[in-house]
């Protein structure tokens, strides 16, 4: 069977399944569909007007408006390119080397290189659609700000096709070579090492903005530093440069230059596709076999062989053994959950990427960059919100599916003397402690960098911890209230993955409730901050009373966020039939 026939058949299957999934939406809750539609609409409209406001604001900057708008595009596409490559790598590894469909396809009379081509194309679409969705309001706003005709948007759409193919192919090739030549364990540690080096490098090499005394000089200096700091996005060898330059050329002229970058992108996308075809013929099947045979570069090292070295998890058992007051089953459950998490690279790598980016941001905060302490406080407040939003994403992604993931193993813990109630408590505490440690660390770094006053550091720190507990309560509670154990025989299968569980009604509801909770908490705490920013002065005693009162309300809201879903969940699991 040739490549075209295989792709035609696989497209037919994919189309049928997509149709069935779309039709299945009719059986979904109207509430969930409405919530999702409203979110999409809110992002689209809100994003469009925010970007439009931003572009118009920048265009008024004396003498540099056009340059700043262009720079926004270059930086945006550079960031998009990086995200697309990472996203293609993460999804591509699972699709190419862990998917049961790939294994099945490799037993059929088709070429392994064709299977690679199909799965890479599928990965490119899966990894890119969300980013394109994010980019759409920006492009629409840019076009509106430049008063472009309709044909401009069609040309931009054309430009995006080769632009998403390049990171798709590059991500596929990286996965191909890494899997072929690196042992799995070595890959895991290499990934961590790269992450740490990138974080340290970014901390040392990304220079914070410094300010001058005079306001207008300070503004010019800030703009100057911003332009200098974003020069990396102007590397002409980056595909993000080509796409940004194409958009700018079509927006401001000359048009031939835009056409040139379109052709450049297409030729490079074709070249990347060709490289994938050639290298996959040589490497893919070999890499697949090695990946499933625990072979690879340095695979002879004893250290890489789990059975030949001391188990690294023993320290975990010792550590948990040192914690006083823990029941044996709690220790066992905590150890099990941590091990399962650690051994699944695709799980913790997302955790590291999310908090790593946030860490990068807070490490680079400087009070001087914001001119006045008031703005520093405002930025700290927004940092707290960003940290809470990241936590909400992660508790929904990782903690919410925990109860469902027990699935067919539920009877093991369900029939154990501790009972399911304690399983829920364990998951709640584990999630709360882990997220509190990470988010509090980020908040403290942020407060230290911004030189926040003591009372505000305390308020934001305590709120961050409370929100970690609140978000964990929501995720664990709703996870048990809306479990996804699969239907029919699927409950017996191994391929139920957390991402699939999260995409159901329960996952969406959990995320929406988490957002509502964050908005309420942020809304309550915005008041003392607002009074401070507007210059209202209170005596020390009154100020303390206000801060304590505000925090007490936040605490009350958080207790509700924890106890209501957790109590309902406990009631649900106590009557659960296994």
């Amino acid at each position: 069977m040739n490549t075209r026939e295989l792709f035609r058949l696989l497209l037919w299957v994919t189309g049928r399944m997509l149709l069935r999934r779309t039709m299945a939406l009719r059986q979904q809750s109207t509430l969930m569909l409405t919530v999702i539609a409203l979110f999409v609409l809110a992002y689209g409209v809100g994003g469009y007007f925010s970007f439009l406001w931003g572009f118009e604001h920048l265009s008024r900057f004396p003498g540099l408006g056009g340059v700043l708008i262009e720079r926004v595009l270059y930086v945006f596409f550079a960031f998009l390119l990086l995200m697309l490559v990472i996203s293609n790598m993460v999804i591509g590894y699972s699709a190419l080397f862990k998917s049961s469909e790939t294994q099945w396809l490799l037993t059929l009379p088709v070429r392994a290189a064709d299977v690679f081509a199909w799965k890479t194309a599928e990965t490119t679409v899966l990894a890119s659609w969300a980013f394109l969705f994010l980019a759409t309001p920006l492009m629409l706003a840019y076009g509106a700000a430049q008063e472009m005709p309709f044909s401009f948007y069609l040309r931009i759409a054309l430009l995006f096709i080769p632009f998403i193919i390049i990171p798709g192919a590059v991500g596929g090739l990286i996965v191909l070579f890494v899997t072929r030549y690196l042992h799995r364990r070595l890959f895991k540690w290499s990934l961590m090492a790269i992450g740490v080096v990138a974080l340290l490098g970014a901390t040392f090499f990304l220079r914070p903005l410094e300010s001058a005394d005079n306001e207008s000089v300070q503004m010019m200096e800030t703009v100057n530093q911003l332009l200098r700091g974003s020069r990396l996005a102007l590397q002409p060898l980056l595909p993000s440069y080509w796409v940004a330059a194409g958009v700018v050329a079509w927006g401001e002229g000359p048009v031939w230059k835009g056409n040139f970058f379109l052709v450049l992108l297409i030729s490079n996308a074709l070249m990347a596709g060709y490289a994938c075809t050639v290298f996959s013929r040589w490497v893919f099947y070999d890499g697949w076999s090695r990946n499933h045979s625990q072979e690879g570069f340095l695979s002879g090292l004893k250290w890489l062989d789990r059975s030949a070295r001391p188990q690294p998890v023993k320290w975990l058992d010792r550590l948990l053994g040192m914690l006083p007051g823990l029941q044996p089953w709690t220790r066992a459950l905590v150890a099990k959950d941590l091990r399962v998490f650690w051994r699944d690279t695709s799980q913790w790598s997302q955790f590291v990427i999310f908090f790593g980016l946030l860490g990068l941001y807070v490490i680079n905060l400087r009070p001087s960059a914001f001119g006045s302490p008031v703005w520093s406080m405002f930025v700290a407040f927004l940092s707290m919100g960003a940290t809470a939003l990241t936590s909400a994403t992660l508790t929904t992604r990782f903690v919410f599916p925990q109860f469902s993931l027990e699935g067919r193993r539920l009877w093991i813990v369900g029939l154990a003397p501790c009972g399911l109630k304690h399983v829920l408590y364990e998951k709640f505490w584990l999630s709360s402690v882990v997220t509190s440690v990470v988010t509090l660390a980020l908040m403290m770094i942020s407060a230290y960098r911004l030189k926040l006053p003591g009372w505000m550091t305390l308020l934001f720190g305590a709120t961050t911890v409370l929100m970690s507990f609140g978000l964990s309560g929501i995720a664990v509670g709703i996870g048990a209230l809306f479990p996804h154990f699969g239907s029919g025989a699927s409950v017996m299968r191994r391929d139920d993955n957390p991402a699939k569980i999260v995409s159901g009604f329960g996952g969406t509801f959990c995320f929406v409730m988490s957002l509502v909770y964050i908005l309420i908490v942020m809304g309550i705490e915005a008041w003392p901050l607002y009074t401070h920013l507007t210059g209202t002065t209170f005596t020390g005693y009154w100020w303390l009373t206000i801060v304590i009162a505000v925090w007490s309300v936040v605490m009350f809201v958080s207790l509700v966020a924890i106890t209501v879903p957790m109590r309902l969940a406990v009631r649900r699991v106590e009557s659960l039939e296994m």
Partner: protein
Amino acid sequence: MIRTDKLTKQFADLTAVKALDLDIPQGEFFAFLGPNGAGKTTTIKLLVGLLKPTSGRAIVGGFDIQQDPVAARKLISYVPDLPFLYEKLEPLEFMLFVGQLYGMDRKQAERSSLELFERFQLDATRGQLIENLSHGTRQRVVLASALLHDPKVLIIDEPMVGLDPRSARVVKDVLKERSRAGTTVFLSTHILYIAEELADRIGILSRGKLIAVGSMDQLRAAAGKVGALEETFLALTQESVEAPAETPAGS
């Protein structure tokens, strides 16, 4: 039809399959037995080309699975212990897809599918999505799809798990029929009576080595046992555990 020459597979420090020599002629029903972790599934993965051997080679229908995988796989149908199915397809759609992957035209695939549906009592599943089928029904769909293109070699890993007695009987009958009609059946199982009832020859693998191969009578003679396969199997595998060094494989 299936031949392996000194087929070996090494996983880190573990040799999962050690210098396996097999020769299974066309039309033979070959049962492959062994304790858990003996290397049965690894052997099957080497036979269908899912894994590369560390050394040695596997030849199916005259084609080396590593040198000419597409030609070899045209002759093979492989049913793993945990088979893959597209959850959002109907069984007939899945069958049509598989048939066309093996080069059948759509009408021919549909006609053969309907015949197999009747044989495997799958008519009632038409119009249902695969995700809603029970484990046993899914297993029957997979077996039916494996037989669709009339393979020359059928390699099956634990086909009876989850099947009710009536379905198990249908599967046994179909496999025996196909074997008589010239299909080589390579069946890996833990259910000894299936091997005893259906197989022309039985191979026993222990710790990656083929410790015995032959008809029931030959195996009984090698083990010095009479009666059911269970006693023979236990005796042979026990010997292999007690004397792990070099155990000659009979034939």
